[in-house]
């Protein structure tokens, strides 16, 4: 396979960034949810 280095770099940066970003958003949201009363986190019951 040609350009293997570029391929690995491109895909790993792409998927890696999305994973790290997604993880950080989920973590921040989890931390934020601690400070909000359960009844004000309204989408949870609405979607479930």
């Amino acid at each position, binding site marked *: *396979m040609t*350009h293997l280095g570029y391929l690995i770099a491109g*895909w790993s940066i792409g998927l890696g960034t999305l*994973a790290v970003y997604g993880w950080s958003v*989920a973590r921040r949201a989890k931390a934020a949810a601690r400070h909000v009363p359960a009844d004000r986190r309204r989408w949870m019951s609405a979607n479930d």
Partner: protein
Amino acid sequence: MSSVGAASPQTAQAADYSVSSRGTRLLGVFILVSVPVLLLFAFVFTEADDTMEDAVRLLYIHVPVAVLTYVAFSLTAVGSVAYLWKRSRWWDTVAHAAAEVGVVFCGLTLVTGSIWGRPTWNTWWEWGDVRLVTTLVLFLVFVGYLAFRSVPAEPETRAKRAAVIGIIGAINIPIVNRSVEWWENNTLHQQSSLTDGQLEDLTLFTWFLGTVVLGAIFVWLLITRFRLAWLEEEIDRHGLVTALEERRAESHVGVEAAVGGSVVGGFQDNPGGPQ
């Protein structure tokens, strides 16, 4: 996102502060399953391109990410217009979440495009290319948008001004695109590659799959980011309720002080005044 994807509804207990819902958990599972499938298609099932050789495999992530960038910024513009129209916090939050996810996707568009351009065009960056320069300017416009949003301000003021910035940013896209196109109309981009009929069915399918998978990631991120922003505003409101109670308590203590303890003279020493 893996942690959320793995969490099943049964494990969600009262002490669980995860912001996932059944929808996002299903989406998470789908993403975890489909990413390896996409990788299989992108690296194993499809053939190398005649001219780009194996570098074409980068396009299976680059193109969907680029498309979703424009979706995200369009969503910011829609949210901004809807906010100014309806003045609802929901739309402001949509615009904010879309802009942040959009900046991440826009950055990835630039990076993956650059990595693809190096072996293909033999350059990391090409000033003459319309889409490259447009995307870079767009990136900077929305980095500015996020910078503005991160400044502490009264929420309503910030929402209104951010909406204007978001709309102007979106208006700017076609203007920048036009001007760059005129500037150097020798674009290096394979403008016809999707339409000139030389593509194999499998290549086309992989592109489609890439759009679906990255679209799912995009939606998951958008929803989760929206919920984060929503929670942050709820915290703010909750803080306001507490502050209001404290403030009201002051009015009972403050009666005697109000009548007796007034300071003669200066008007500068009033902390209730505008800062």
